[in-house]
Protein backbone atom coordinates (compact mmCIF):
# COMPACT_ATOMS: atom_id res chain seq x y z
CA UNK A 1 0.00 0.00 0.00
CA UNK A 2 1.32 3.48 -0.75
CA UNK A 3 1.37 6.20 1.88
CA UNK A 4 -1.58 8.00 0.33
CA UNK A 5 -3.83 4.95 0.63
CA UNK A 6 -2.68 4.38 4.20
CA UNK A 7 -3.42 8.01 5.02
CA UNK A 8 -6.93 7.84 3.54
CA UNK A 9 -7.69 4.57 5.35
CA UNK A 10 -6.42 5.94 8.66
CA UNK A 11 -8.63 8.99 8.22
CA UNK A 12 -11.63 6.77 7.51
CA UNK A 13 -10.95 4.96 10.78
CA UNK A 14 -10.47 8.13 12.82
CA UNK A 15 -13.60 9.86 11.60
CA UNK A 16 -15.55 6.64 12.13
CA UNK A 17 -15.21 7.11 15.89
CA UNK A 18 -16.84 10.50 15.59
CA UNK A 19 -19.58 9.14 13.33
CA UNK A 20 -20.19 6.31 15.82
CA UNK A 21 -20.58 8.80 18.64
CA UNK A 22 -23.15 10.78 16.60
CA UNK A 23 -24.88 7.47 15.78
CA UNK A 24 -25.07 6.46 19.44
CA UNK A 25 -26.86 9.71 20.29
CA UNK A 26 -29.15 9.39 17.25
CA UNK A 27 -30.43 5.94 18.23
CA UNK A 28 -31.11 7.30 21.71
CA UNK A 29 -33.20 10.00 20.04
CA UNK A 30 -30.85 12.98 20.28
CA UNK A 31 -29.32 14.91 17.41
CA UNK A 32 -26.02 16.56 18.31
CA UNK A 33 -24.31 19.31 16.32
CA UNK A 34 -21.45 19.33 18.79
CA UNK A 35 -19.55 16.02 18.75
CA UNK A 36 -16.53 17.80 17.24
CA UNK A 37 -16.00 19.50 20.62
CA UNK A 38 -15.34 16.18 22.38
CA UNK A 39 -13.19 15.05 19.48
CA UNK A 40 -11.24 18.27 20.10
CA UNK A 41 -11.09 17.74 23.85
CA UNK A 42 -9.61 14.29 23.23
CA UNK A 43 -7.12 15.62 20.68
CA UNK A 44 -5.89 18.43 22.93
CA UNK A 45 -5.82 16.40 26.15
CA UNK A 46 -4.14 13.36 24.59
CA UNK A 47 -1.64 15.47 22.66
CA UNK A 48 -0.72 17.50 25.73
CA UNK A 49 -0.19 14.42 27.89
CA UNK A 50 2.15 12.69 25.42
CA UNK A 51 3.97 15.69 23.94
CA UNK A 52 4.29 17.89 27.04
CA UNK A 53 4.45 15.40 29.89
CA UNK A 54 5.88 12.34 28.17
CA UNK A 55 2.99 10.01 29.03
CA UNK A 56 2.68 6.81 27.01
CA UNK A 57 -0.05 7.02 24.37
CA UNK A 58 -2.34 4.27 25.78
CA UNK A 59 -2.51 5.94 29.17
CA UNK A 60 -3.00 9.38 27.61
CA UNK A 61 -5.79 7.97 25.44
CA UNK A 62 -7.60 6.51 28.46
CA UNK A 63 -7.28 9.79 30.29
CA UNK A 64 -8.54 11.75 27.28
CA UNK A 65 -11.53 9.40 26.95
CA UNK A 66 -12.42 9.93 30.59
CA UNK A 67 -12.19 13.68 30.06
CA UNK A 68 -14.34 13.48 26.91
CA UNK A 69 -16.94 11.42 28.78
CA UNK A 70 -16.95 13.88 31.67
CA UNK A 71 -17.21 16.88 29.31
CA UNK A 72 -20.22 15.49 27.43
CA UNK A 73 -21.81 14.33 30.69
CA UNK A 74 -21.55 17.88 32.04
CA UNK A 75 -22.93 19.39 28.82
CA UNK A 76 -25.68 16.78 28.87
CA UNK A 77 -26.79 17.47 32.46
CA UNK A 78 -28.60 20.74 31.71
CA UNK A 79 -29.44 20.02 28.05
CA UNK A 80 -30.58 16.42 27.63
CA UNK A 81 -34.11 17.28 28.73
CA UNK A 82 -34.36 19.59 25.72
CA UNK A 83 -35.99 18.05 22.68
CA UNK A 84 -35.06 18.00 19.02
CA UNK A 85 -33.68 21.23 17.64
CA UNK A 86 -33.24 22.77 21.08
CA UNK A 87 -30.78 20.06 22.06
CA UNK A 88 -29.02 20.33 18.70
CA UNK A 89 -28.60 24.08 19.14
CA UNK A 90 -27.42 23.73 22.73
CA UNK A 91 -24.73 21.25 21.66
CA UNK A 92 -23.76 23.53 18.78
CA UNK A 93 -23.39 26.46 21.19
CA UNK A 94 -21.29 24.32 23.55
CA UNK A 95 -19.06 23.14 20.69
CA UNK A 96 -18.49 26.64 19.34
CA UNK A 97 -17.64 27.78 22.85
CA UNK A 98 -15.11 24.94 23.06
CA UNK A 99 -13.57 25.93 19.72
CA UNK A 100 -13.18 29.56 20.82
CA UNK A 101 -11.70 28.41 24.13
CA UNK A 102 -9.13 26.38 22.16
CA UNK A 103 -8.34 29.63 20.31
CA UNK A 104 -7.80 31.43 23.61
CA UNK A 105 -5.83 28.53 25.10
CA UNK A 106 -2.09 29.28 25.39
CA UNK A 107 -0.25 26.80 27.54
CA UNK A 108 3.30 25.85 26.64
CA UNK A 109 6.32 24.20 28.27
CA UNK A 110 9.96 24.53 27.36
CA UNK A 111 11.22 21.12 26.28
CA UNK A 112 14.81 20.91 25.00
CA UNK A 113 14.74 24.64 24.38
CA UNK A 114 11.58 24.45 22.26
CA UNK A 115 8.16 25.66 23.40
CA UNK A 116 5.68 22.76 23.19
CA UNK A 117 1.93 22.98 23.71
CA UNK A 118 -1.27 24.64 22.50
CA UNK A 119 -0.63 28.15 21.20
CA UNK A 120 -4.11 29.55 20.55
CA UNK A 121 -4.96 30.04 16.89
CA UNK A 122 -1.38 29.07 15.98
CA UNK A 123 -2.35 25.54 16.89
CA UNK A 124 -0.47 22.80 18.67
CA UNK A 125 2.42 21.17 16.80
CA UNK A 126 4.90 18.45 17.62
CA UNK A 127 2.59 15.65 18.82
CA UNK A 128 5.19 13.09 17.80
CA UNK A 129 4.72 10.14 20.14
CA UNK A 130 3.96 7.80 17.25
CA UNK A 131 7.12 8.73 15.33
CA UNK A 132 9.32 8.76 18.38
CA UNK A 133 8.25 5.26 19.33
CA UNK A 134 8.92 3.88 15.90
CA UNK A 135 5.33 3.10 14.97
CA UNK A 136 5.15 2.84 11.17
CA UNK A 137 2.12 4.33 9.36
CA UNK A 138 0.93 0.80 8.60
CA UNK A 139 1.27 -0.14 12.25
CA UNK A 140 -0.72 2.92 13.31
CA UNK A 141 -3.39 2.01 10.79
CA UNK A 142 -3.55 -1.39 12.47
CA UNK A 143 -3.93 0.18 15.91
CA UNK A 144 -6.73 2.47 14.72
CA UNK A 145 -8.66 -0.39 13.12
CA UNK A 146 -8.11 -2.74 16.06
CA UNK A 147 -9.64 -0.11 18.36
CA UNK A 148 -12.45 0.52 15.89
CA UNK A 149 -13.16 -3.22 15.73
CA UNK A 150 -13.26 -3.29 19.52
CA UNK A 151 -15.75 -0.43 19.58
CA UNK A 152 -17.88 -2.14 16.92
CA UNK A 153 -17.94 -5.43 18.82
CA UNK A 154 -19.04 -3.52 21.91
CA UNK A 155 -21.80 -1.85 19.87
CA UNK A 156 -22.99 -5.13 18.38
CA UNK A 157 -23.06 -6.80 21.80
CA UNK A 158 -24.97 -3.91 23.33
CA UNK A 159 -27.45 -3.82 20.46
CA UNK A 160 -28.29 -7.49 20.95
CA UNK A 161 -28.74 -7.06 24.69
CA UNK A 162 -31.56 -5.68 26.82
CA UNK A 163 -29.62 -2.42 27.06
CA UNK A 164 -29.77 -2.02 23.27
CA UNK A 165 -33.55 -2.49 23.29
CA UNK A 166 -33.80 0.09 26.10
CA UNK A 167 -31.71 2.57 24.08
CA UNK A 168 -33.88 2.25 20.99
CA UNK A 169 -36.99 2.41 23.13
CA UNK A 170 -35.83 5.67 24.68
CA UNK A 171 -34.99 6.98 21.22
CA UNK A 172 -38.26 6.06 19.59
CA UNK A 173 -40.73 6.89 22.35
CA UNK A 174 -39.34 8.32 25.60
CA UNK A 175 -42.79 8.63 27.20
CA UNK A 176 -43.52 4.96 26.57
CA UNK A 177 -40.07 3.97 27.85
CA UNK A 178 -40.60 6.05 30.99
CA UNK A 179 -43.99 4.43 31.58
CA UNK A 180 -42.27 1.03 31.40
CA UNK A 181 -40.03 2.07 34.27
CA UNK A 182 -36.96 3.24 32.33
CA UNK A 183 -35.17 6.22 33.85
CA UNK A 184 -34.93 8.09 30.54
CA UNK A 185 -32.71 10.87 31.79
CA UNK A 186 -30.22 8.46 33.32
CA UNK A 187 -30.04 6.39 30.14
CA UNK A 188 -29.44 9.53 28.10
CA UNK A 189 -26.71 10.76 30.43
CA UNK A 190 -24.99 7.39 30.14
CA UNK A 191 -25.28 7.56 26.36
CA UNK A 192 -23.84 11.09 26.40
CA UNK A 193 -20.83 10.01 28.45
CA UNK A 194 -20.18 7.03 26.18
CA UNK A 195 -20.51 9.21 23.07
CA UNK A 196 -18.09 11.74 24.57
CA UNK A 197 -15.54 9.01 25.29
CA UNK A 198 -15.82 7.60 21.74
CA UNK A 199 -15.39 11.04 20.16
CA UNK A 200 -12.43 11.77 22.43
CA UNK A 201 -10.74 8.49 21.47
CA UNK A 202 -11.10 9.46 17.81
CA UNK A 203 -9.60 12.84 18.69
CA UNK A 204 -6.54 11.37 20.44
CA UNK A 205 -5.84 9.12 17.47
CA UNK A 206 -6.38 12.04 15.09
CA UNK A 207 -3.92 14.29 16.95
CA UNK A 208 -1.25 11.59 16.95
CA UNK A 209 -1.81 10.79 13.29
CA UNK A 210 -1.52 14.42 12.13
CA UNK A 211 1.05 15.55 14.77
CA UNK A 212 -0.52 19.02 14.43
CA UNK A 213 -3.94 20.28 15.52
CA UNK A 214 -5.54 23.70 15.51
CA UNK A 215 -8.90 25.03 16.72
CA UNK A 216 -10.22 25.29 13.16
CA UNK A 217 -10.08 21.48 12.86
CA UNK A 218 -12.94 21.25 15.34
CA UNK A 219 -15.51 23.54 13.75
CA UNK A 220 -19.17 22.92 13.01
CA UNK A 221 -18.36 21.39 9.60
CA UNK A 222 -16.76 18.36 11.25
CA UNK A 223 -19.73 17.88 13.57
CA UNK A 224 -22.38 18.09 10.88
CA UNK A 225 -20.33 15.80 8.65
CA UNK A 226 -20.24 13.13 11.33
CA UNK A 227 -23.99 13.47 11.82
CA UNK A 228 -24.45 13.11 8.07
CA UNK A 229 -22.23 10.01 7.98
CA UNK A 230 -24.29 8.36 10.68
CA UNK A 231 -27.53 9.16 8.90
CA UNK A 232 -26.59 8.22 5.33
CA UNK A 233 -24.88 5.03 6.44
CA UNK A 234 -28.01 4.03 8.28
CA UNK A 235 -29.48 3.94 11.75
CA UNK A 236 -30.14 0.18 11.76
CA UNK A 237 -26.68 -1.01 12.79
CA UNK A 238 -23.40 0.34 14.10
CA UNK A 239 -21.85 -0.59 10.75
CA UNK A 240 -24.00 2.16 9.18
CA UNK A 241 -21.82 5.13 10.24
CA UNK A 242 -18.78 3.33 8.82
CA UNK A 243 -20.51 2.90 5.50
CA UNK A 244 -21.19 6.65 5.52
CA UNK A 245 -17.57 7.55 6.21
CA UNK A 246 -16.24 5.07 3.64
CA UNK A 247 -18.64 6.45 1.03
CA UNK A 248 -17.42 10.00 1.50
CA UNK A 249 -13.75 9.90 2.40
CA UNK A 250 -12.89 6.49 0.99
CA UNK A 251 -14.69 6.26 -2.32
CA UNK A 252 -14.75 9.86 -3.42
CA UNK A 253 -11.44 11.12 -2.09
CA UNK A 254 -9.65 7.85 -2.71
CA UNK A 255 -10.71 7.52 -6.31
CA UNK A 256 -9.94 11.17 -7.12
CA UNK A 257 -12.20 10.78 -10.18
CA UNK A 258 -14.38 13.65 -9.09
CA UNK A 259 -11.47 15.85 -8.16
CA UNK A 260 -12.70 19.42 -7.79
CA UNK A 261 -16.35 18.34 -8.00
CA UNK A 262 -16.33 16.00 -5.02
CA UNK A 263 -18.73 17.98 -2.86
CA UNK A 264 -21.13 18.63 -5.71
CA UNK A 265 -21.33 14.90 -6.49
CA UNK A 266 -21.43 13.80 -2.86
CA UNK A 267 -23.92 16.47 -1.76
CA UNK A 268 -26.33 15.57 -4.54
CA UNK A 269 -26.00 11.84 -3.84
CA UNK A 270 -26.70 12.35 -0.14
CA UNK A 271 -29.83 14.41 -0.81
CA UNK A 272 -31.13 11.80 -3.28
CA UNK A 273 -30.22 8.90 -0.99
CA UNK A 274 -32.15 10.48 1.87
CA UNK A 275 -35.27 10.80 -0.30
CA UNK A 276 -35.04 7.10 -1.04
CA UNK A 277 -34.02 6.03 2.49
CA UNK A 278 -34.64 8.72 5.15
CA UNK A 279 -33.02 6.57 7.86
CA UNK A 280 -29.97 5.72 5.77
CA UNK A 281 -28.70 2.91 3.60
CA UNK A 282 -28.57 0.29 6.37
CA UNK A 283 -31.79 1.24 8.13
CA UNK A 284 -33.69 -1.06 10.50
CA UNK A 285 -35.58 -2.74 7.64
CA UNK A 286 -32.46 -3.40 5.62
CA UNK A 287 -30.73 -4.84 8.67
CA UNK A 288 -33.65 -7.20 9.39
CA UNK A 289 -33.73 -8.31 5.77
CA UNK A 290 -29.99 -8.99 5.82
CA UNK A 291 -30.29 -10.95 9.09
CA UNK A 292 -33.04 -13.17 7.70
CA UNK A 293 -31.06 -13.67 4.54
CA UNK A 294 -27.84 -14.69 6.22
CA UNK A 295 -28.90 -16.58 9.31
Amino acid at each position, binding site marked *: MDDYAIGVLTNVGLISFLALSAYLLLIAGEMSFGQQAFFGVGAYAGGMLTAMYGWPLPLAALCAMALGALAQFLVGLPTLRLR*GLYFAMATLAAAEMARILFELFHFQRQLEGEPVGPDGTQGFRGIRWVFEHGVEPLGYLGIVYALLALALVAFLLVERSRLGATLRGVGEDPELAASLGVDVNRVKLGVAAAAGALAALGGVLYAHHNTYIEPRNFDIMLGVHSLAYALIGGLGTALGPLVGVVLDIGALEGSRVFHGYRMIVFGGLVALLLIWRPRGLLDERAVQWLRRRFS
Partner: protein
Amino acid sequence: MTDLAQNTLDGLFLGSSYALLALGFTLIFGVLRRVNLSFGPAVMFGCYAATWVHLNFGAGLVLLAMVAVLGSILAGAYVERLCFAPHRGGSAIAAMVASFALWMQFEELATIALPRHVYDFPALHGGAPLAFGALTLRVESLVMLLAAVLVCALLWWILYRTRFGVAVRAVIDQPQAAQLAGISVPRIFMLTFALASAIGGLAGFLIASSHEQVTPMLGMWSTMKGLLAMMLGGLGSLPGAVLGGLALGLLEAHSQWFFGPQTRDLIAYALLFILLAARVPWMTTRSAS
Protein backbone atom coordinates in the same frame (compact mmCIF):
# COMPACT_ATOMS: atom_id res chain seq x y z
CA MET B 1 -20.30 57.85 26.95
CA THR B 2 -19.82 58.60 23.27
CA ASP B 3 -18.31 55.15 22.84
CA LEU B 4 -21.30 53.59 24.51
CA ALA B 5 -23.70 55.47 22.22
CA GLN B 6 -21.61 54.69 19.14
CA ASN B 7 -21.47 50.99 20.03
CA THR B 8 -25.21 50.91 20.61
CA LEU B 9 -25.75 52.53 17.21
CA ASP B 10 -23.36 50.10 15.49
CA GLY B 11 -25.02 47.21 17.30
CA LEU B 12 -28.45 48.24 16.06
CA PHE B 13 -27.23 48.35 12.46
CA LEU B 14 -25.39 45.05 12.76
CA GLY B 15 -28.48 43.64 14.43
CA SER B 16 -30.72 44.73 11.58
CA SER B 17 -28.73 42.55 9.18
CA TYR B 18 -29.08 39.62 11.60
CA ALA B 19 -32.78 40.39 11.93
CA LEU B 20 -33.23 40.10 8.15
CA LEU B 21 -31.46 36.73 8.08
CA ALA B 22 -33.44 35.52 11.09
CA LEU B 23 -36.72 36.56 9.42
CA GLY B 24 -35.95 34.34 6.44
CA PHE B 25 -34.99 31.46 8.71
CA THR B 26 -38.08 31.90 10.86
CA LEU B 27 -40.50 32.00 7.93
CA ILE B 28 -39.19 28.64 6.76
CA PHE B 29 -39.11 27.17 10.25
CA GLY B 30 -42.55 28.49 11.16
CA VAL B 31 -44.20 27.01 8.10
CA LEU B 32 -42.21 23.81 7.58
CA ARG B 33 -41.07 23.04 11.16
CA ARG B 34 -37.71 22.25 9.60
CA VAL B 35 -34.31 23.87 9.85
CA ASN B 36 -32.83 24.79 6.52
CA LEU B 37 -29.07 24.75 6.99
CA SER B 38 -28.72 25.71 3.34
CA PHE B 39 -30.38 29.06 3.92
CA GLY B 40 -27.07 30.89 4.32
CA PRO B 41 -25.38 29.09 1.41
CA ALA B 42 -28.36 29.96 -0.83
CA VAL B 43 -27.86 33.61 0.17
CA MET B 44 -24.17 33.24 -0.66
CA PHE B 45 -25.10 31.72 -4.03
CA GLY B 46 -27.15 34.84 -4.81
CA CYS B 47 -24.26 37.11 -3.81
CA TYR B 48 -21.81 35.11 -5.91
CA ALA B 49 -24.15 35.30 -8.89
CA ALA B 50 -24.26 39.09 -8.41
CA THR B 51 -20.47 39.28 -8.08
CA TRP B 52 -20.08 37.24 -11.27
CA VAL B 53 -22.42 39.57 -13.15
CA HIS B 54 -20.55 42.54 -11.72
CA LEU B 55 -17.16 41.20 -12.81
CA ASN B 56 -18.28 40.22 -16.30
CA PHE B 57 -20.71 42.98 -17.21
CA GLY B 58 -19.99 45.72 -14.66
CA ALA B 59 -23.70 45.99 -13.94
CA GLY B 60 -25.10 48.70 -11.66
CA LEU B 61 -26.24 48.29 -8.06
CA VAL B 62 -29.95 47.91 -8.72
CA LEU B 63 -29.32 45.14 -11.22
CA LEU B 64 -26.90 43.45 -8.80
CA ALA B 65 -29.50 43.52 -6.05
CA MET B 66 -31.99 41.89 -8.41
CA VAL B 67 -29.49 39.22 -9.41
CA ALA B 68 -28.71 38.50 -5.75
CA VAL B 69 -32.40 38.16 -4.89
CA LEU B 70 -33.17 36.03 -7.96
CA GLY B 71 -30.11 33.86 -7.42
CA SER B 72 -31.09 33.28 -3.82
CA ILE B 73 -34.69 32.40 -4.82
CA LEU B 74 -33.41 29.98 -7.45
CA ALA B 75 -31.06 28.31 -4.97
CA GLY B 76 -33.87 28.23 -2.39
CA ALA B 77 -36.24 26.56 -4.85
CA TYR B 78 -33.61 23.91 -5.58
CA VAL B 79 -33.18 23.26 -1.85
CA GLU B 80 -36.92 23.07 -1.31
CA ARG B 81 -37.44 20.56 -4.14
CA LEU B 82 -34.57 18.30 -3.13
CA CYS B 83 -34.56 18.53 0.68
CA PHE B 84 -37.94 19.62 1.97
CA ALA B 85 -40.69 18.68 -0.48
CA PRO B 86 -39.74 14.94 -0.38
CA HIS B 87 -39.60 14.88 3.44
CA ARG B 88 -42.88 16.72 4.05
CA GLY B 89 -44.48 14.92 6.98
CA GLY B 90 -41.42 12.69 7.19
CA SER B 91 -38.11 12.85 9.00
CA ALA B 92 -36.95 16.28 10.18
CA ILE B 93 -33.37 15.07 10.64
CA ALA B 94 -33.21 13.66 7.12
CA ALA B 95 -34.42 17.00 5.70
CA MET B 96 -31.85 18.91 7.72
CA VAL B 97 -28.96 16.64 6.78
CA ALA B 98 -30.03 16.83 3.13
CA SER B 99 -29.97 20.62 3.36
CA PHE B 100 -26.46 20.35 4.77
CA ALA B 101 -25.45 18.19 1.80
CA LEU B 102 -26.60 20.91 -0.58
CA TRP B 103 -24.65 23.46 1.47
CA MET B 104 -21.52 21.53 0.42
CA GLN B 105 -22.64 21.80 -3.18
CA PHE B 106 -23.17 25.57 -3.04
CA GLU B 107 -19.81 26.12 -1.42
CA GLU B 108 -17.94 24.10 -4.00
CA LEU B 109 -19.91 25.65 -6.85
CA ALA B 110 -18.99 29.12 -5.58
CA THR B 111 -15.28 28.31 -5.43
CA ILE B 112 -15.37 26.77 -8.91
CA ALA B 113 -17.12 29.81 -10.43
CA LEU B 114 -14.99 32.39 -8.60
CA PRO B 115 -11.85 30.65 -7.30
CA ARG B 116 -10.16 33.51 -5.43
CA HIS B 117 -10.76 33.64 -1.71
CA VAL B 118 -12.08 37.21 -1.66
CA TYR B 119 -13.83 39.27 -4.31
CA ASP B 120 -14.60 42.97 -4.14
CA PHE B 121 -18.26 43.87 -4.06
CA PRO B 122 -19.38 47.40 -4.95
CA ALA B 123 -20.31 49.60 -2.00
CA LEU B 124 -23.70 51.26 -1.90
CA HIS B 125 -22.32 54.65 -1.13
CA GLY B 126 -18.58 54.36 -0.69
CA GLY B 127 -18.13 57.93 0.54
CA ALA B 128 -17.17 59.11 3.99
CA PRO B 129 -19.57 58.22 6.82
CA LEU B 130 -22.07 60.84 7.93
CA ALA B 131 -21.24 62.60 11.16
CA PHE B 132 -23.75 63.58 13.84
CA GLY B 133 -21.81 65.42 16.48
CA ALA B 134 -19.34 62.89 17.86
CA LEU B 135 -21.25 59.95 16.37
CA THR B 136 -20.57 58.58 12.90
CA LEU B 137 -22.98 56.70 10.69
CA ARG B 138 -22.31 54.74 7.52
CA VAL B 139 -24.81 55.15 4.74
CA GLU B 140 -24.81 51.35 4.29
CA SER B 141 -25.88 50.91 7.90
CA LEU B 142 -28.77 53.32 7.48
CA VAL B 143 -29.92 51.49 4.36
CA MET B 144 -29.70 48.19 6.22
CA LEU B 145 -31.87 49.43 9.06
CA LEU B 146 -34.33 50.96 6.62
CA ALA B 147 -34.46 47.69 4.66
CA ALA B 148 -35.10 45.70 7.84
CA VAL B 149 -37.98 48.00 8.82
CA LEU B 150 -39.44 47.89 5.31
CA VAL B 151 -39.17 44.10 5.05
CA CYS B 152 -40.91 43.74 8.42
CA ALA B 153 -43.71 46.04 7.31
CA LEU B 154 -44.06 44.23 4.01
CA LEU B 155 -44.08 40.83 5.70
CA TRP B 156 -46.70 41.98 8.14
CA TRP B 157 -48.83 43.23 5.25
CA ILE B 158 -48.41 39.97 3.33
CA LEU B 159 -49.17 37.77 6.34
CA TYR B 160 -52.08 39.77 7.75
CA ARG B 161 -53.63 41.49 4.75
CA THR B 162 -53.47 39.04 1.84
CA ARG B 163 -55.19 35.72 1.11
CA PHE B 164 -51.76 34.14 0.80
CA GLY B 165 -50.92 35.38 4.28
CA VAL B 166 -54.08 33.88 5.78
CA ALA B 167 -53.16 30.57 4.16
CA VAL B 168 -49.61 30.75 5.50
CA ARG B 169 -50.80 31.45 9.04
CA ALA B 170 -53.35 28.66 8.77
CA VAL B 171 -50.58 26.23 7.76
CA ILE B 172 -48.41 27.43 10.65
CA ASP B 173 -51.17 27.02 13.24
CA GLN B 174 -53.05 23.95 11.98
CA PRO B 175 -51.45 22.24 8.99
CA GLN B 176 -54.02 19.45 8.81
CA ALA B 177 -57.01 21.72 9.16
CA ALA B 178 -55.52 24.01 6.53
CA GLN B 179 -55.21 21.09 4.13
CA LEU B 180 -58.81 20.07 4.81
CA ALA B 181 -59.95 23.64 4.16
CA GLY B 182 -58.59 23.33 0.63
CA ILE B 183 -55.27 25.11 1.04
CA SER B 184 -52.56 23.53 -1.06
CA VAL B 185 -49.87 22.96 1.56
CA PRO B 186 -47.10 22.08 -0.96
CA ARG B 187 -47.79 25.34 -2.80
CA ILE B 188 -47.60 27.34 0.45
CA PHE B 189 -44.29 25.62 1.25
CA MET B 190 -42.87 26.54 -2.13
CA LEU B 191 -44.03 30.18 -1.94
CA THR B 192 -42.83 30.58 1.65
CA PHE B 193 -39.44 29.29 0.60
CA ALA B 194 -39.33 31.76 -2.28
CA LEU B 195 -40.33 34.64 0.02
CA ALA B 196 -37.76 33.68 2.67
CA SER B 197 -35.05 33.30 0.03
CA ALA B 198 -35.89 36.69 -1.45
CA ILE B 199 -35.48 38.28 1.99
CA GLY B 200 -32.21 36.36 2.41
CA GLY B 201 -31.00 37.51 -1.01
CA LEU B 202 -31.70 41.14 -0.15
CA ALA B 203 -29.97 40.75 3.20
CA GLY B 204 -27.00 39.10 1.48
CA PHE B 205 -26.72 41.91 -1.07
CA LEU B 206 -26.79 44.55 1.67
CA ILE B 207 -24.26 42.65 3.81
CA ALA B 208 -21.91 42.10 0.86
CA SER B 209 -22.05 45.74 -0.17
CA SER B 210 -21.52 46.97 3.37
CA HIS B 211 -18.51 44.63 3.77
CA GLU B 212 -17.52 45.54 0.18
CA GLN B 213 -16.47 41.93 -0.39
CA VAL B 214 -17.76 38.38 -0.75
CA THR B 215 -16.09 35.17 0.42
CA PRO B 216 -17.33 31.56 0.50
CA MET B 217 -17.57 31.99 4.28
CA LEU B 218 -20.67 34.15 3.78
CA GLY B 219 -22.77 30.97 3.60
CA MET B 220 -21.76 29.60 6.97
CA TRP B 221 -21.76 33.06 8.52
CA SER B 222 -25.35 33.74 7.41
CA THR B 223 -26.59 30.36 8.60
CA MET B 224 -24.93 30.70 12.00
CA LYS B 225 -26.02 34.29 12.64
CA GLY B 226 -29.54 33.64 11.37
CA LEU B 227 -29.91 30.52 13.51
CA LEU B 228 -28.53 32.25 16.61
CA ALA B 229 -30.82 35.25 16.20
CA MET B 230 -33.82 33.02 15.51
CA MET B 231 -33.16 30.89 18.60
CA LEU B 232 -32.56 33.92 20.85
CA GLY B 233 -35.85 35.46 19.75
CA GLY B 234 -37.88 32.31 20.27
CA LEU B 235 -38.20 29.71 17.58
CA GLY B 236 -40.74 30.45 14.87
CA SER B 237 -41.89 33.89 15.99
CA LEU B 238 -41.47 36.70 13.44
CA PRO B 239 -41.34 39.62 15.92
CA GLY B 240 -39.02 37.41 17.99
CA ALA B 241 -36.69 37.04 15.01
CA VAL B 242 -36.36 40.82 14.71
CA LEU B 243 -35.81 41.26 18.43
CA GLY B 244 -33.38 38.35 18.53
CA GLY B 245 -31.39 39.85 15.65
CA LEU B 246 -31.23 43.29 17.26
CA ALA B 247 -30.31 41.80 20.65
CA LEU B 248 -27.54 39.75 19.07
CA GLY B 249 -26.21 42.82 17.23
CA LEU B 250 -26.19 44.95 20.39
CA LEU B 251 -24.58 42.18 22.43
CA GLU B 252 -21.86 41.69 19.81
CA ALA B 253 -21.10 45.39 19.36
CA HIS B 254 -20.72 45.98 23.09
CA SER B 255 -18.78 42.81 23.91
CA GLN B 256 -16.46 43.39 20.95
CA TRP B 257 -15.65 46.82 22.34
CA PHE B 258 -14.92 45.50 25.81
CA PHE B 259 -13.36 42.11 25.10
CA GLY B 260 -12.40 41.76 21.42
CA PRO B 261 -13.79 39.56 18.63
CA GLN B 262 -13.09 36.07 20.04
CA THR B 263 -14.72 36.72 23.38
CA ARG B 264 -17.59 38.45 21.54
CA ASP B 265 -18.55 35.16 19.87
CA LEU B 266 -17.91 33.22 23.06
CA ILE B 267 -20.38 35.44 24.93
CA ALA B 268 -23.05 35.08 22.24
CA TYR B 269 -22.84 31.25 22.32
CA ALA B 270 -22.68 31.18 26.11
CA LEU B 271 -25.85 33.27 26.27
CA LEU B 272 -27.64 30.91 23.88
CA PHE B 273 -26.47 27.88 25.85
CA ILE B 274 -27.55 29.32 29.18
CA LEU B 275 -30.94 30.45 27.90
CA LEU B 276 -31.59 27.01 26.40
CA ALA B 277 -30.41 25.17 29.51
CA ALA B 278 -32.53 27.42 31.73
CA ARG B 279 -35.48 26.78 29.38
CA VAL B 280 -36.64 30.39 29.45
CA PRO B 281 -40.32 30.45 28.58
CA TRP B 282 -40.18 32.31 25.26
CA MET B 283 -37.66 29.88 23.82
CA THR B 284 -39.25 26.55 24.52
CA THR B 285 -42.93 27.18 23.96
CA ARG B 286 -42.93 25.82 20.41
CA SER B 287 -42.48 22.20 19.52
CA ALA B 288 -39.27 21.71 17.63
CA SER B 289 -38.96 18.00 17.10
